[in-house]
C-alpha cells in the first residue's frame, strides 16, 4: 500500500463499461468455528484470531505480496485514507480491539480481522468486472479455508455475527456514476427498480452517506437462498440496464442540451483549474462534472484514469498522506486546490 500518489489498480479505469462503472467489489464475511464472534470475544480470542489468520495468510503466500498492519499501525489517524480508498470500514479503524489488516500490493485485495466478523475480505476490480473480482475473492477464500476452520452450517451456510450476512456471506457491489440520469431526473425510476428486485442503493461511501457527485453503489441485500453467481448475475444484469439508461440519457443531453452540458463540464474544469481554496465535497462534485466531460469526449486532454485518481487523492486523509503532512481543514482546502490545479494544468 502506498499512501502517496499511487492508487490501486482497481481505479485504473480500464475495466469494462468504465464510462459509467467505476469499480466492482466482492466482499466475503467469514468466522472461525470455535471462537465467539468479535463483539463477544475476549481480548485473548481477538489476539488468537489475528495470529491464526496471519499464519494462514503466510502459509498461502498472500503475505509476501502485500502488507500486514496491526493495532498500533491502525490507530494512526492517517489510516483514514484506507476508508477513503474503500479498503477498510470506519468501525474497524475506530475499534479498540486487537485487529489485523492485510492489503495486497495492488490494493485490489484487502482483509480485515476482527471487524464485525472475524474475517472480512474483498476484491475490487476496475469497471464492471465480477468475473475478475469474484474469482480472486473465491481463490483467497479457498486458500484461507485450507488453513482455517470456518463456522459453517449446511442449512444456513457461512455463519455470521448478524443474520443479514448469512449464507454466502457475500456482498457484491458496483460503484456507478449516473450524472445524466440525475440531470434528466430519471434516476428515481432506476433506483426504485433496483430496490424493487431486492438490491440496495447507497451513496459513495456506503451506508448512510449521501450521493456525492452522483456516484451510487448498487449491492445485494439478500445473501441466503441464491448461489454466489446468481447474486452476481442479478447485480450485473441491473447494472447493464442502468449503464444503458445512463448512456441514453447522456446521448439525449448531448443532442438536446449540448451547450448546457458543455457549460457544466467547462465550469467544473475552470473551477478546478482556477480555485485557490477547495473543500473535499466541492472537489468531488467538480471532479464528477469533469468526469462526465471526459466520458462524453468534451474534454480530451485528461484521461479517465487521471480523473478517477484525482477523486481519491483529494479526500482529506489521502491528500495528507500524499503531502506527508498533518494539516488543518483550512490548510487542506488550500493545498487541495493547489494539488488539483497543478495536476490539471500539467495532466
Amino acid at each position, binding site marked *: 500500500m502506498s499512501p502517496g500518489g499511487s492508487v490501486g489498480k482497481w481505479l485504473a479505469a480500464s475495466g469494462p463499461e468504465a464510462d459509467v462503472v467505476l469499480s466492482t467489489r466482492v466482499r466475503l464475511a467469514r*468466522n*472461525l*468455528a*470455535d*471462537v*465467539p*464472534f468479535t*463483539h*463477544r470475544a475476549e481480548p*485473548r480470542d481477538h489476539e*488468537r484470531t489475528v*495470529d*491464526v489468520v496471519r*499464519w*494462514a495468510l503466510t502459509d498461502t503466500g498472500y503475505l509476501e505480496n502485500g502488507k500486514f498492519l496491526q493495532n498500533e499501525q491502525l490507530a494512526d489517524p492517517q489510516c483514514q485514507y484506507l476508508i477513503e480508498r474503500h479498503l477498510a470500514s470506519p468501525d474497524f479503524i475506530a475499534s479498540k480491539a486487537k485487529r489485523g489488516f492485510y492489503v495486497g500490493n495492488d490494493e485490489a485485495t484487502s482483509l480485515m480481522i476482527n471487524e*464485525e466478523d472475524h474475517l472480512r475480505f474483498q476484491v475490487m476490480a476496475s469497471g464492471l468486472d465480477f468475473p475478475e473480482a469474484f474469482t480472486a475473492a*473465491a481463490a483467497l*477464500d479457498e486458500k484461507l*479455508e*485450507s*488453513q*482455517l*476452520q*470456518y*463456522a*459453517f*452450517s*449446511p*442449512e*444456513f*451456510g*457461512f*455463519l455470521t*455475527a*448478524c*443474520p*443479514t450476512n*448469512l*449464507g*454466502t456471506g*457475500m456482498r457484491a457491489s458496483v460503484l456507478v456514476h449516473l450524472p445524466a440520469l440525475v440531470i434528466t431526473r430519471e434516476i428515481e425510476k432506476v433506483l426504485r427498480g433496483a430496490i424493487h428486485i*431486492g438490491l440496495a442503493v447507497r451513496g459513495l461511501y456506503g451506508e448512510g452517506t449521501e450521493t456525492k457527485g452522483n456516484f451510487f453503489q448498487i449491492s445485494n441485500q*439478500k*445473501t*441466503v*437462498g*441464491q*448461489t*454466489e453467481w446468481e447474486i452476481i448475475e442479478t447485480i450485473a444484469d441491473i447494472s447493464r440496464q442502468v449503464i444503458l439508461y445512463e448512456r441514453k440519457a447522456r446521448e439525449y443531453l448531448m443532442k438536446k442540451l449540448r451547450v448546457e452540458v458543455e457549460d457544466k463540464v467547462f465550469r467544473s474544469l475552470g473551477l478546478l483549474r482556477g480555485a485557490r481554496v477547495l473543500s473535499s465535497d466541492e472537489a468531488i462534485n467538480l471532479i464528477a462534472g469533469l468526469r462526465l466531460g471526459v466520458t462524453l469526449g468534451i474534454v480530451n486532454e485528461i484521461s479517465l484514469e487521471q480523473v478517477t485518481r484525482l477523486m481519491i487523492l483529494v479526500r482529506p486523509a489521502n491528500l495528507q498522506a500524499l503531502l506527508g503532512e498533518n494539516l488543518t481543514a483550512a490548510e487542506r482546502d488550500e493545498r487541495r486546490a493547489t494539488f488539483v490545479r497543478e495536476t490539471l494544468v500539467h495532466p
Partner: protein
Amino acid sequence: MKACDLCGKGEATMKVSQLDKEGKVTEITICPECARQRGFTEVEKLKANVAEIITELKNRIDEGDSKLICPNCGLSYAEFKRQARLGCAECYTSFHDQLVPLIRRIHDAVQHVGRTASGGRKQAQMKMNVQKLREALSGAIQDEDYEKAAALRDQLRKTEGE
C-alpha cells in the same frame, strides 16, 4: 332494589345475556359478587383486560427470550434482539427456531445454496490447540506449578509433532 337472579340476596347491578341449551337467549340481572364468582365481566372492563393480557403475554415472551440462552457463549435471545448480533456460531443452533422466521423475513429463504465449506481442516484446529497450550504452559510456569507445566510441555510437543 332488585335482588340478584342467582343468589337472591345481593343487589342486582349487571345484566347478563345467556344462551340456554335450546339456543334461547335469556337475560338475567345479577349482583357484583355473583358476577365475580362466575367470571362475568363488563365490556369496558373486558377491554382493559385484553390490554393487560397482551402486556402480560409480551412480558412472558420477553422473559422467555431472556431465559433462552446459548449454552456455548451465554448470549440470551433477548440480548440478540437488542443488539442484532449473535454471540457465536453455536447461537444458530441454540436459537434455531426463533431465527428461522427472522432469516426468512430478511432473505426470503432459509436454505443456503451457495458454496459450501469443506468443514474445516485439521491443521487449523491444531494451530488453535498449540496456541491454547502455549498460553496454559506460560500460566503454569508463572504459577510455579512445574508438574502441570511438564505435562503441558509434553502435550504441546505431541500436538506440534502431529
